[in-house]
Every structure is written in C-alpha cells, then in structure tokens.
C-alpha cells in the first residue's frame, strides 16, 4: 500500500519525461490525484486505537538496509498533508510554468515520492536516503524554474541542508553500531547512554534545525522561497519544513529523551529568539514572499516550543501547528503566486486596493491571513493554543516570549493585508487585475475547507495521532524537565486553623 503510494509518482514522473508539455501536466495531475485518493483511503483505514504501526511492509534488501515502511498516526497526517498539497501544486504550475514542463512535472513527482518515503520509512538508512534525496529535485526546481537569483538560492539551499544532514548520518551509523539494528521502531525504544545521547542529539539537531528551520540557521529559507516558483514555495513551506518537526518527534525525542531534556533550554532560547526576531524582520519586508518566509520561521518556533515541552498538549499542539502552517503558508504562497502571475512583481508597494477589483481574491486572502494570525476557528489557533499551554507548563517565561509572537504575527500579517487589499491601487496595473479564475478558485477552495475544518473540528486530525503522542510522552516522561510553575496543592486546613485562631483573638 505504502509502496504503491511511493511508486505511483515515481512511475508517473518517469513517464512525464517522454511526453509533451500538455500530456505531462495531465499525467502529473492524475498521478497526484490518485495519490490523494490513496491517502484518503489510508486515513479512513487507519485505526487510531489499533497497533502503533500500521500498513507495515518489510523487504530486506541486504546489507543493513531494508525496504521497511509503516506509518503511525503522526506520519499519517503528514502524508495526508503532502498528498493534499501536491495536486494543488501541480495546478498552481499549470500555466505559470511554460518552459521545460515535462522535466518540471517529473521533478515534482520525484519530490512527492521522496517526501512520502521520508514519512513512511521505518529503516534508518532508508529514511536518510529519502531525506537527502529530496534535495536533488528541489535543487533543480529552484535552480531551473526559479527567479533571478535562483542559482545562489539553489546552492544555498542544497549545501546548507546537506551540511546539516551529513552529521546526522554519522550519528545514525553510530546508533546502528551500538544498537545493532536499523529499524526505527526498535531504535525508538533503545536506551543509549546519556553521554552519547547528548552528542547524538546534537548531530540530529544540526540536521533538523536547518530543515525546520530554526534561528540562526534559517537564512537559506527566505532566499529559497523568494526564488522558487510558486509551487516550489508551497511544497517547501508546506511539507519540506515539516520534515524537521517530524524528525524531532520521530528521532530526537523518543531516541534520546535525556539528551533532549538536557538541551531544552537551548531549544527554548533559540525558538524564543526566532519568534521575536524573525517576526520583527517580517514586519519590515517589502517582498511578499520574503515576509511569508520569515513568518514561517516564526511559526516553526511554535513547533519547537511545543515539542520540547515534553507533554501531551505541547506535542499535539506542535503537530497541529505543523499541519495548520502547512495549509496556511502554502495557501499564502499561492495567493502571492496569483498576483505575481498577473503583475510579475512581489513588491508590496506595487499593489493596493485589490479588494476593489479582486473581491474574491481579497476574501480568500483575508481567510488565510486570519488563519495565519491564529484567529479562533481557524487551523492555526488550535495548534498555537495547545503548544502554548504545553510550553507554559514547563516554562512560563518561554510561553510569554512565544505569545509575543502571536501579537507580532498579527501585526505583520494585517499590515501586509492592509497594504495589498485596502486603500487605493498604487499602480494602474494593480487596478486592472482581474479576479480569480476558475482554476485558482479550485486551487484555493479546498485549502479554505481544510483551514476551517481543522479550526472547528480538530478532533478528526488529532485522533489518529493522539495515542502515538501519548506513547511518546510516556517514553520521554522520565526525562521531562521540571516546570517552573509547580502549583502545589494548598493546605486549606492550616489556613482554616489560622483563620480560626485569628477569630479566637
């Protein structure tokens, strides 16, 4: 089943190389839709109360790598996110990509196969192969179909993330040497010596922090986002960044609980800086994509806050932020793509007053802006609220710093929306732009549905991974850092005696 999920885009990608542009578009669309249907089936067939790992496949390949696939609830929802965003990405590039279409579609489908592989892999080295392999198609997508500075951005993306991951590879080799297995589920229950855990945690952190990205290793992200074509940005923000968070949940926390606990202060400080600093940077951006890219870094900090809170709310919240951010930032990039296709500029100052001539666009953009701000009733509210609650239990200061991020987030997103949609058009071209086409409605409407569904009834998304998060919390509980707000139950009796004594006087 999972093999099929990975094989379909791979085969379709191969096919794309041998056909003309129009056929390649259709092949890509059909393949991603089939994958979406398969993903929906997985979601329906997944039993939240069943075994931890479902749809397990294991085919030993020889040496110490095996084609071992299997998903738990955490992987399931991330797979759903990927297969949901893919057809939208293909649709978004339908007309805006007009050169070398077959190769573009092939690169995208290869990307999808590798992303799904990352979430489904149950073998350490298989995971690494998928994790690293994703660099190649993304490098090509940014480098070939990107904007003016694409070469620099693609190098930066590739080398930055490669540098992060190679240290993880050494850590993996060390783990395999110690534990004598490459199976991720077994390793998740293996206790490494505490000293080794710290080093291993750092090596994995190097990789996931770059991928996530966390401050100060986030600098590749704005460049990559700005230069990538719209669909590339969507998939980058929507899914690739989630690999970092997924890595923390799958590897860092369960495999090195003590190591993770030891570095909680580091993570919190970095995340705190990220929230405040990148939000402030986002405030002064003049390029729409860059603004959203910086907002991604800030949002991802909520994920790290939640994950390293070591409690159920925090980790569930982190998962929800990842899902919500995947939808919302993807949608925001699509919104930028819509106007970029019309005016070929991302300068905020060139737009204005779009609410007048593009009411439909303004409406949808409003929805996504509000979702990004974390308005109750939208997807991001649930996640941010939960992860803040989780963080508050561990460190009230961290929670206070994180909350400023929500305020600043509201500031830059509303500023962006105001400058683009309200007022009068600053350039004549902006005033003449036409409203959303039917294709663009089809791309954005499903995301709107997703955003509200997640905001109003998050249970359908939380249910699959609740048990898995509970298992994770149980596993890491022994190392959980003591919170600074330990409300001790009061002693009413003493108090009462005291009062009684007072009264007696």
């Amino acid at each position, binding site marked *: 089943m999972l093999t099929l999920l990975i094989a379909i885009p791979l085969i379709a990608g191969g096919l794309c190389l041998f056909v003309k542009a129009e056929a390649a578009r259709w092949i890509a669309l059909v393949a991603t839709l089939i994958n979406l249907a398969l993903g929906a089936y997985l979601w329906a067939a997944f039993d939240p109360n069943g075994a931890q790992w479902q749809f397990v496949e294991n085919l030993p390949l020889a040496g110490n790598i095996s084609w071992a696939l299997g998903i738990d609830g955490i992987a399931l929802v991330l797979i759903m996110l990927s297969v949901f965003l893919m057809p939208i990405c293909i649709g978004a590039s339908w007309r805006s990509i007009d050169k*070398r279409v077959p190769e573009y579609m092939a690169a995208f489908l290869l990307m999808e196969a590798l992303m799904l592989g990352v979430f489904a892999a149950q073998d350490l080295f298989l995971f690494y192969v998928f994790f690293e392999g994703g660099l190649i198609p993304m490098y090509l997508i940014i480098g070939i179909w990107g904007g003016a500075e694409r070469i620099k951005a693609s190098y930066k993306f590739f080398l930055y993330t490669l540098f992060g991951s190679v240290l993880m590879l050494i850590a993996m080799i060390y783990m395999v040497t110690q534990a004598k297995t490459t199976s991720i589920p077994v390793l998740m229950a293996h206790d490494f010596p505490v000293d080794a855990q710290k080093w291993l945690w750092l090596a994995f952190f190097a990789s996931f922090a770059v991928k996530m990205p966390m401050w100060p290793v986030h600098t590749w992200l704005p460049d990559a986002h700005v230069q990538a074509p719209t669909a590339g940005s969507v998939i980058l923000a929507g899914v690739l960044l989630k690999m970092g968070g997924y890595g923390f949940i799958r590897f860092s926390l369960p495999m090195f609980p003590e190591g993770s606990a030891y570095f909680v202060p580091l993570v919190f400080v970095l995340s705190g800086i990220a929230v405040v600093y990148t939000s402030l940077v986002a405030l002064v951006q003049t390029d729409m994509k860059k603004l959203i890219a910086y907002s991604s870094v800030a949002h991802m900090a909520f994920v790290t806050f939640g994950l390293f809170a070591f409690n159920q709310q925090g980790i569930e919240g982190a998962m929800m932020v990842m899902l919500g951010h995947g939808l919302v930032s993807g949608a925001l990039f699509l919104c930028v793509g819509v106007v970029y296709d019309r005016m070929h500029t991302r300068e905020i100052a060139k737009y204005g007053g779009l609410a007048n001539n593009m009411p439909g666009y303004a409406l949808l953009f409003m929805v996504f802006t509000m979702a990004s701000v974390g308005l109750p009733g939208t997807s991001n509210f649930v996640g941010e609220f939960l992860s803040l609650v989780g963080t508050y239990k561990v460190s009230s200061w961290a929670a206070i710093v994180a909350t400023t991020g929500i305020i600043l987030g509201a500031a830059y997103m509303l500023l962006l929306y105001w400058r683009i949609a309200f007022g009068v058009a600053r350039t004549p071209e902006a005033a003449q732009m036409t409203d959303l086409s039917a294709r663009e409605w089809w791309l954005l409407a499903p995301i709107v549905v997703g955003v509200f569904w997640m905001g109003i009834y998050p249970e359908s998304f939380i249910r699959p991974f609740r048990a898995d998060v509970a298992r994770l919390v149980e596993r890491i509980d022994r190392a959980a850092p003591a919170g600074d707000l330990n409300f001790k139950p009061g002693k009413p009796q003493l108090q009462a005696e005291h009062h009684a004594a007072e009264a007696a006087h």
Partner: protein
Amino acid sequence: MFGGLITADLFGSFGKAIIFLASAVAIIAAHGWFERDTEHSAEYSVLILFSALGGAVMVSATSLVTLYVGLELQSLSAYVLASYRRSDDRSAEAGLKYFVLGALASGILLYGISLLYGFTGTMNFNGIAAAFAREGSTSLGLLFGLVFVLAGVAFKISAVPFHMWTPDVYEGAPTPVTAFFASAPKVAAVLLGTRICLDALEPAIEAWRQIVIFAALASIFLGAVAAYGQTNIKRLLAYSSINNVGFALVGLAAGGQQGASSVLFYMAVYVVMTLGAFLCVLWMRDENGEPVEEIAALSGLSQTRPAYAAALAMFMFSLAGIPPLFGFWPKLLVFQAAVNSGLVALAVAAIVGTVIGAYYYLRIIKVMYMDEAAAPFGRVSQPVQGALIFLAALIVSPLGYLLIGPLNKLTDLAASSIF
C-alpha cells in the same frame, strides 16, 4: 604460488575483475577517439593489456619483489600511454611529468622495500608481519621502511601529498587513457596498499594508521577545495579522483575485515562512476568532431541532449555521494567501518569534506541544467560506448541498491581472504 611470491585468493580475483573490466572499457573508449590508421594502432591495446597485467600482479603480490615488478610493469606502460598522442604537446608533457615523478616515487618505494628487507631479512609479507610483531614498531629502520613504502603507494593512488602529478597528467593524456588511469591502476594501487597495510604491516597498525588518516583527510579536503576553480572537466575529475581516494583511505584507516571490505566496495562503485563520467567526457565533441574539455561547453546540455545530460548529472551526484544514488552507499560503508573502529572524529571530518566537495559537482549540474544552451555537441555514433554509459548510469541509479547484497557478500569474502 611461485614460492610465495604471488597468491591467487579472492581478494586478488576481485581486484583483477575490476581491473580487467576497466581495461576493456578503456580499449572500447579509444574507438572513434583516436584518428583511425595513423594513431589508433595495435600498440594502444597492447600497452593497456600490459598495464592491466601489471595491475593484476600488484593485487595478488604477497612479496615485495612481485609487488615492485607488477607496479613497474603497470607504470611503465602507463607512462607510454600518457604520451600516446605524440603530436600533441600536452600529451607529451603529461607523459614526461608522469615518468619523472613516477620514477622518483618508484625510487622511494624501492628504498622503503630495501629498508624493510634489510631489517626483516625477508621479502615475504607474512615474514614482514612476523618481524613487525616481534619487534613492535619500535625499530626505527622498520618504521622508515614503512613510511617510504606507503609514500610510494600514495603516489600511485594520487593521495595528498603525492598528488601533484594527477591534474596535469589527467588533463594532458588522451581522454580514453585518462579514463584508464582513473580506474584500473588506481584500483590496483589501492588494493595493493590495502594488502600491504592489512597483511604485511598489520602488527604496526598504530604506526601506519596516522599516516593513512592524514593522507585521507588531506586528499578529501584538497580534492574538494582545489577543484573549485577548475574550468577543464578532466582536471576537475582528476581532483574528484583525489577526493574519492581519500574516502577509500578512510575505510583503510578503519582496518580490519570490515575496513578492507568497505575499501573493495568503494573501489568497485568508484570505478563504475568514474568510467561513466569519463565516457561522457569522451563524447564532448564540437561540430567537427574535435574533443572539447571546457566545462563551459556543457552549458544547457540538458536542453540539447537530455539523456546525455541526465547520465552525467547522475554520475556527478553519485560521485558527490548524495542519496538516493548508489555512490552514497560505499561512502556509508567506509564511514561505518571508521565508526566501528572508534574513529568517529575521522568520519565526521571526512563527511564534512563531502559537503565541500558537493559544491563543484553541483557546479557541473548547474552548468548543464540552469545555464543557457551553448553550441550543441557534434553527434558521436558509438553504440557500444552509449550502452556502457547507460549501464553505468543504471548501476549508479537507485536500482544499484539491489546490488548491495551480492556485492557485499563478495567483498566480505574477498576481505576475509587476506586475514
């Protein structure tokens, strides 16, 4: 055999299989490259065969004498091959440089051999191992002999600091010959080094390990950094081969059966990647069929010749060791061997080197895929070479992972035969 001069074990056979296959490819590669009749005469094949024979002796030598004989047979043919294109100044220069420096290296090696012989009284690897075990690595004479022998071998595998000849010779020699240099003699020398270190010098592992670690790291970093400014693809591939030898040496430094096995695996895959890359270089011709070697000539190749560009891109990603291509796996194995022997710091340093090295491989991809198309290459109609490129590309593709099982079994068996 021959009174303990040579042995026919699986280790040697494995090396011979690679050497002979690589030589066959080098002979096939010459077709259509040299001008027929005037240049491409029988001597070419004869010299390649001699050199391959020398390599075969090297990988099965169990005595310092056979080692030297094999090495000289291999090298002398190689000197002539380097200057095979007599009319070309660069080719002659390459041959001369190779010969002068090679002769110096042979001298160093011979001096080392004489020291080892003088202090142990035997030429046989087993005897030398016994002498080292007896005296430990305390004897200065033995240590000097060891250092000189390793220096001679390092020259042959073009490990830093004995690499200086490589870029010049690779650039100047005719491309089919360069393809040969980068594959067969290199495999022979690396395997020879492996056998000496793990057989004859096994008891002195602490002594040679530092040298090998230094050579490995220096090769990796120098190979990665020096390739940065190259504009000639053959020079770039020369630095790439220096870089790759560094990784094989990481496996050797790990020592033990796992280390030897990882070296064998590494060399087998390396030969496929490098031959594939050189065959692609062989096809770089302008409209008149004259060979071009500038990297800039590859601009926009993906638009004019998509399949060709895809194959070269695969070799580049594979040489860089980026998964899911097969070149990743041998790197993983050598790192695994290193970590297993407790050389974690070495593994970390080496893997950081791969990131630096990735930059210049990416540059080739960038030129081919992201730049505007340059003048298209002239067509080369060599179906056999085309099939070879296809085969090599197939092996380095993720499908190559299916080979891990059999190849692993083979390298393990081969490695166990020298212990």
